[in-house]
Structure formats: structure tokens, C-alpha cells
């Protein structure tokens, strides 16, 4: 076994040898990687929220990794399991054609992590959407407000405890 591997929420073949890119992160951030897997061939690292900005900077800057293209950021609600939320980030490296998925578990009563807007500007709207839909707070985000819904909307509709048939009155724009 080359690296610490712990229990993993999604089933995975985590006994496999890690890919070179995963290996690089494991060497540098061994204490911050909670688990890893490559289920169906998707390299995945589960990392502590305290380390997420450092890991992202590392992935973007290292010449043999260069994950310069941020593709996606979203969240998943695993109610009633704790930690309840998982922020899921997909990255692509244009020079090397590599893909990477990062997952950050967040507790249900404290769904906060640091913003990634300082690493990739593109995360701006994606973080706003995760706030809008799941109520995840991105500390240090320059403009963390709702994006798809309107400001007066109450609650975060993609949380599993938000009923699908709930209706809210529509309120016009403020200005």
C-alpha cells in the first residue's frame, strides 16, 4: 500500500495503484487526503476543507500537473449521513489531458469552506450556485449571493429536506 486509504462513501477500487497525478498529491499532502478512489476510472481525492485551497493551488501550479481548466463545482446532500454535504470539484489539465475530481466533506451544521476564486476565476458563479442550491458558504467569495433564484427565496431547494412540491410566492425585483 503506497498511501493512507480510509473508508469511502462511494464504492471504489481504492486498493488500486494511484495514478501519477494522484501520487503527486498524496506525497505532498499526505495528512490532508482523507481517502481516494478511481471508481470507473475517475481519479478522485477526498480532502480536508482546511487544505482545499492549498491542494488546488498545487494542482494548478505544478508543471507536470497544470490543472488549469476548472470545469465544475457542485455539492451533494447525503442526508441523514454525517458529514452531510460534499462539495465536488472537477478539473482538467489542458497541457496533459488529465482529469481530477476533488471532494470536500462538510458537516451539516457548519457547511463552510474557503472560496477558490483566488485560484480559478471561473469558480465565481459555480460557488454562487452551490450557495443558492445547497446553502454552502464560501468564505472570502467576492459576491456570494443567489444566482438562479431570486434574493427573497427562502431555503436551499436542492437540499434533500426541501420538499419538491413546496411553493413560494414570487416577489418582484427590489429596484
Amino acid at each position: 500500500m503506497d498511501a493512507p486509504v480510509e473508508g469511502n462513501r462511494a464504492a471504489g477500487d481504492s486498493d488500486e495503484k494511484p495514478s501519477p497525478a494522484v501520487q503527486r498529491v498524496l506525497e505532498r499532502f499526505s495528512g490532508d487526503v482523507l481517502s481516494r478512489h478511481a471508481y470507473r476510472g475517475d481519479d478522485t481525492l477526498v480532502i480536508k476543507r482546511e487544505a482545499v485551497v492549498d491542494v488546488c493551488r498545487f494542482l494548478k501550479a505544478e508543471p507536470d500537473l497544470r490543472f488549469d481548466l476548472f470545469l465544475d463545482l457542485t455539492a451533494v446532500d447525503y442526508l441523514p449521513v454525517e458529514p452531510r454535504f460534499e462539495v465536488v470539484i472537477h478539473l482538467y489539465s489542458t497541457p496533459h489531458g488529465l482529469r481530477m475530481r476533488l471532494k470536500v466533506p462538510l458537516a451539516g451544521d457548519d457547511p463552510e469552506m474557503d472560496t477558490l476564486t483566488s485560484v480559478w476565476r471561473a469558480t465565481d458563479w459555480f460557488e454562487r450556485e452551490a450557495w443558492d442550491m445547497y446553502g454552502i458558504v464560501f468564505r472570502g467569495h467576492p459576491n456570494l449571493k443567489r444566482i438562479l433564484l431570486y434574493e427573497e427565496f427562502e431555503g436551499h431547494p436542492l437540499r434533500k429536506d426541501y420538499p419538491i412540491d413546496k411553493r413560494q410566492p414570487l416577489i418582484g425585483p427590489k429596484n
Partner: protein
Amino acid sequence: MAEPENELHTDEMILNIGPSHPATHGTVRVLATLDGENIVNADVEIGYLHRAFEKSCEHGTWQQAFPYTDRLNYNSAIINNVAYAMGVEKLLGIDVPERCRFIRTIASEISRVADHLTCIGPSAMEVGAFSTFLYFVEARELMWDLIESLCGARLTNNYVRIGGVKADLPADFAEKLKAHFVKTRQLIDDVDKLLTHNRIFIDRMRGTGVLSAEDAIDWGWTGPCLRSTGVPLDLRKDEPYLVYDQVDFDVPVGEYGDNFDRYLVRMEEMHQSMRMVEQLLEKIPEGPINVEDTRVRWPAKQLVYSRMEELINHFKIVFEGVQPPKGEAYAAVESPNGELGFYLVSDGSGKPVKVRCRPPGFANLQALGPILKGGMLSDLVPSFGMINMIGGECDR
């Protein structure tokens, strides 16, 4: 009181454009802060077409999400279908038959032509070239005729299934396609003659909406918008899925990263797509179009009506849904506007835990505000048109 050295100064004003404006084909609102005719700042507001795509998907079975995916980018619905089906098949760990992969590729490329036609036609109209719009709508009708002969629907196709497609190619498909492609090429050439060397069109498009390759990557751009800046990133070449490794095609890239390059890239991509479809129809093998897997595809109607086991099998698939094993997967395709990805999470039941669509239009539109800054108000129209934001996909 004006400053002495700045006597001709004008007050800034805020102009609201949209959400329902002829130039915002799609519901989007731009709050432009203007100094004279120059844009000082532009705030882009989206969400007017939000229809709870993800929430709806989580409350149906895996196969019930297909009609919702049609309504993401409705100009190329089949590409959305294909991307979602590829995601579920990746979760299930199954491969579809060769003929099915050919059919999916053919249908995707026809959809791509229709999508580019829908991008260029209205965008050219908005900068004053009305006749090109009519030519391209005619060409799009021809593409939709072909799609209609595949699945019966022109717009929301719902053609792809988990583990296959709804129906095989009709018998006269190749013949019909040949005739339609002759006419479409002619229409594209006509528009090419009307626009590509047109002084007015060039003046509106060239040098407006410029973004450098580094900035485009930083903003998460993919697809024709990214390729217009000179980055040859195309998943069909870089990570060939379906049967893109069996066809010969070129990936056009731009040089300046402006609106005119985005137009040129799309014009060339239509020719490349038609080239691909013709090659694929030459090579397409005979064989089944669906996987032979009773967990995924239901048995033939004849058997369902005449035999007990098949009836039960059919009932279970319809009511309980296809059940991918517990896990997660991300599948991406090159949609007409960039990387369209589906991140899916299954808990082993018939209903998805999470169906995330990575919309290319969302990331592309995010950079609209920054590229408008410092330009003229009139540049907003071609820049917005060439980013080709699709409300259904951007707002979901």
C-alpha cells in the same frame, strides 16, 4: 459641479438590457453601466429560465430524466441525451453495441450543425443581416427533417436510451441525408459569401469581444469559444468517445479570440460535422442497436404481451427503474458550446441521488461581463450572440 480639467464629463448611467429584449435571445439581463456609449461595467444576471432540472431528476427513475435533458440545450437535444446516457452507462459499467455508437455519433453531429446554424443565423440578424437568418433557418429545417426521420420529433427528441437508442436508422436515411446535405452546403456557402467578406459584418465582429487564451481557460471556457482563442481543445480528438476515433476531421481554431473568429470556427465546424456524418454512413456496421441486458433494456413488446417472465421484467424496469450500483461517475461530451458533463451519484436504487449537469453555457456566459468592459454598447450584441448562451442549459 464638474471638475475644471474635466468639463465635458458625463454622468454614468445604468442601462438595463433584458431579461426580455430582442437581442437577448434567451432570458438574460445585463445591467450595463455606461459612460456615453462605452461600457464601464456590465453585470450579467441569469436564472430566469430555472426549472429545477436537478430536483426533478432526483424524483424520478434514471430513465425518466431523458426528457428533462432534452430541454437543456434544446437546439441539440440529442447531444444532451447522449451525454446523460453515457454517464449512466459508465455507472452501470456497460458498453453499447457498435452500431448504436455509430448512430449516436451521426445524430450528434447532425444536431451540432443545427446548433451552429441557430447560433450564427440570429446573431447575424442582430447585427443587421436579416436574409442570412432566413437561409440558416431553412438549413436548420433540413437538419431537423433528418432528426425527425430518426425519432419522430423535431425539437425535443428524447431519442437515446440507457444502453441503446430508441430506433434504428430508417431505410431511406442515407439517400435523404445526401440530398439534404447538398442543399445545406449550398445555403452555408451562400451565407459565407454574404457575411465573411462583408465590410459591415467584419466591422461589427472583428476585434470585439476579445479574450486571450489564458483568460479563456481561467474563465473555464470550452468549445468553439475557447478554440477561437487558439487552444485546440476538443474532446472528440483529445478523449475520443463513441466512434470519433474512426473518423477523419479537423479541429478549426481561431487566431485573435474575437467574435469574428468564433463565427469562423463555427462555420468550419459545420463542414467538418457533415464530413464526419458522410464517413460514418459509409462505415456503419450492421448489428443490434441495444444492449442485450435485461437489467437495462426491456424485452420486445411481442414477448411482454405473450410471456410471464418478460412481463414481470418489463414491470420491474418501468416501476423500479434501472439500478446502477452504488458509486459516482462523470461523463463528458463535446457539445456545440463546449464540454457538457454529467456527474451522477447512485446509491444503488432506481432513483438518482444526484444528477449534475455541467453546462458549458454557464461558464462561457460568466466571462461576458469582463469582455464587455471597456467596449462600446453595440459590441454587446455580437458578443452575446457568439457566446451563444442557451437559457435552458445555463439556468437548468
